[in-house]
């Protein structure tokens, strides 16, 4: 442990933490859009800037390690101006769609815009093109809402055999693509939903929850997936007495998330599950639950044994 001062309070925090983590340990939340404790630190959103005594420049708290005796301020006029400007810049390229956006209520951009009193402003400048990938029955990718935090790219690249998502183009035209600019359907995407779980905004949405319930409605219960030994966490969403959907929760280390696990969890927990789809030769095809869960041979064998009885 080391001693430091955060916002005038003397605190003891663990030695190898970053300023952002240290602040969290003592109950101070620093806003951040691209930070995720499970992912590589990139310091791209610049929202988590803080002032550190002895440094002229603002420093990103996600990428600065704590030091003995460090004195940090997480709020000041300068910091808040920068945060407001960064949020305004993001909103200026973001569609004003919070009324019907599936992410509303859980969206980090919405949360911080509220906290810092930043609003949509009408302007005649550029907006991100309204490119929506509707090709997958599992994931909806809306580039116009993307804030390019890169969390999806990072989480996708954590699993060696996936690495589907990547940045393409540069500057204002930067976007997230699958393989060499393929769709969710034609790419090698396995619909594991890792990217969906880390997306801070409505750019990546679990399509099987779309239009079913608002984030603040219903009850949620965490269940463990039973399809393999990893036991990934899912939320079962219950509304008006019925289990209506499941949603993958953030993967932690060694927990990869997969489509089969998701479908299994959905099949077991949701009262009336929607038809499943399988990707065959770069095309999504509606299929039976038996096939989707890979139970064909098991079922056949069971039938056979039943006959024997």
């Amino acid at each position: 442990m080391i001693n430091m001062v955060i916002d005038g309070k003397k605190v003891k925090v663990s030695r190898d933490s970053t300023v952002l983590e240290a602040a969290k340990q003592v109950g101070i939340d620093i806003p951040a859009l691209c930070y995720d404790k499970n992912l590589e630190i990139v310091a791209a959103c610049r929202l988590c800037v803080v002032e550190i005594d002895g440094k002229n420049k603002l420093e990103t708290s996600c990428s600065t390690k704590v030091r003995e005796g460090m004195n940090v301020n997480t709020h000041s006029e300068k910091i808040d101006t920068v945060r407001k400007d960064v949020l305004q810049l993001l909103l200026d390229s973001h569609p004003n769609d919070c009324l019907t956006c599936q992410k509303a209520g859980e969206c980090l951009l919405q949360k911080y815009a509220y906290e810092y009193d930043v609003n949509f402003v009408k302007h005649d400048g550029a907006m991100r093109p309204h490119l929506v990938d509707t090709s997958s029955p599992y994931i909806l990718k809306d580039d116009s809402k993307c804030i390019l935090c890169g969390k999806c790219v990072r989480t996708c690249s954590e699993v060696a055999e996936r690495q589907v998502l990547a940045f393409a183009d540069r500057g204002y035209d930067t976007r997230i693509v699958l393989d060499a600019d393929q769709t969710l359907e034609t790419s090698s995407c396995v619909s594991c939903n890792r990217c969906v779980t880390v997306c801070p905004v409505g750019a990546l949405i679990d399509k099987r929850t779309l239009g079913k319930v608002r984030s603040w409605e219903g009850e949620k219960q965490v269940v463990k997936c039973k399809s393999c030994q990893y036991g990934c966490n899912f939320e079962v969403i219950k509304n008006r007495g019925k289990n209506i959907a499941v949603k993958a929760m953030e993967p932690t280390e060694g927990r990869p998330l997969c489509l089969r696990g998701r479908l299994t969890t959905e099949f077991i927990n949701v009262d009336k599950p929607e038809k499943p789809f399988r990707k065959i030769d770069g095309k999504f095809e509606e299929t039976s639950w038996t096939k989707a869960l890979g139970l064909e041979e098991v079922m056949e064998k069971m039938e056979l044994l039943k006959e024997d009885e």
Partner: protein
Amino acid sequence: MLVMDMLDEIKDKNRKQLEERLTQKGGYIIDEDGIKLDGDYFKKQVRIALKNCDIIDPTNIEEYIAMDGYFSLKNILNNMSQQEVIDIMKQSGLRGRGGAGFPTGRKWETALQYSSDKKYVICNADEGDPGAFMDRSILEKDPHSVLEAMAIAGFAIGSDQGFIYVRAEYPVAVKRLKAAIAQAKEYGVLGENIFGTNFNFDIELRLGAGAFVCGEGTALIESIEGKRGMPRTKIYRTAHRGLWQKPTIINNVETLANIPVIFQKGVDWFTKIGTEKSPGTKVFALVGKIETAGLVEVPMGMPLHEIIYDIGGGVPDGKSFKAVQTGGPSGGCIPENLLDTPVDFESLAKIGSIMGSGGMVVMDNTDCMVDIAKFFLDFTVDESCGKCVPCREGTKRMLELLEKITSGNGKKEDIDTMERLAVTISSASLCGLGQTAANPVVSTLRYFRDEYEAHVMDKKCPAGSCQSLLQYFITDKCIGCTKCAKVCPVHCISGKVKQLHVIDQDICIKCGACQETCPVNAITRS
């Protein structure tokens, strides 16, 4: 393979031949001080980094040796310890010539302190500032100076592997470097057991694919690692964890070219040139509205006017000087009343510009400063990698505002918005590209605010350069020859033969074709 004493032999033999050849060719001063280029343009110059350029045959290692090349490396491997080499670098006060001016010796010392199974020396040859071409000249005309310096750096920090990250748009430089590396290995001044010692050092080339941001150290490292060229956040310094997370030093081409000379002529000699805080020389690419454009290498601290007028010959075509832009897209515009500013890292920063890699673009009274700011910002917007929000989104919005202003649609509050955006972009961007992206706007606002206000308030471009703010009129000098009506690409000129013609201002695209074609100069521009 070359052993120590063979170096003298090669030098003696080739020096004579070289001097004979140059005497025959003419244009050189050959005396006990060495060989120099002759002419007024070179009189006030002190050439260290460029000392061999246009003198030796860059494809022949023996001519480099004839100019005392590889003697520094030989002496170091023979007589010096790693710490001694670093001490000399620190005493020399040499600072990075790529733009930031970080002390080279300190960089090396940090890399030496971290023990590791592998360390790397990188030469940053991804020169990208518009108008700057000093690194290219060194690579094309004196490649061995860079190789020798890299080997010295390798010895100093304990590295056996160097990379030169050179942009693919420099094909001649790439060719010369490849040839030079092959020659150096053949002569045993690179590769294994250099000069017969147990020091090994190899250099490989890596070609940049055209992204300006890859000149930023950490983006360059990402690129060498085969990733997308985006700057890293510096949790650890590059000298601690750089390329493949190993201690790495990155030095610019011009910085490296200084190093063999420092070891050859000594710290005392070097520190007498330039200023106390910025010893040595700096190469500038003097371009734009200047009588004699080209590369000039001058002692640090020389006032701007001396470079522009005494060396460059001032502004041509009878026009008047308006500003000089230093430091490329990260730099600023300096007005006439500050031309006595000495060029060194601190002085230029104080007046809102930077030394940068040494671009020096001179502008005259027909250049619109708002348009210049727009030009540089357009470059930055194009070259922003898209990683961090202030640079990706902020520079784009700023450019939109400048476009609004130069097209005559600017409002007074747009200037305030730009000023606020500039602060956020500078203070919150991830890398140097973003942190300095607003400089061209900030410095022009500081020194040429009236031009911005003329665009916004009076809808006028004082320099007469912003097309949308121009208006063409036909005066009563018109003889009704109809030439203008015929040449107008949008048919906005009407009038009968032998009668006064009129331009429809709503349709006119301000191309100026009518004015050019008018035989009696009846068309004016305002």
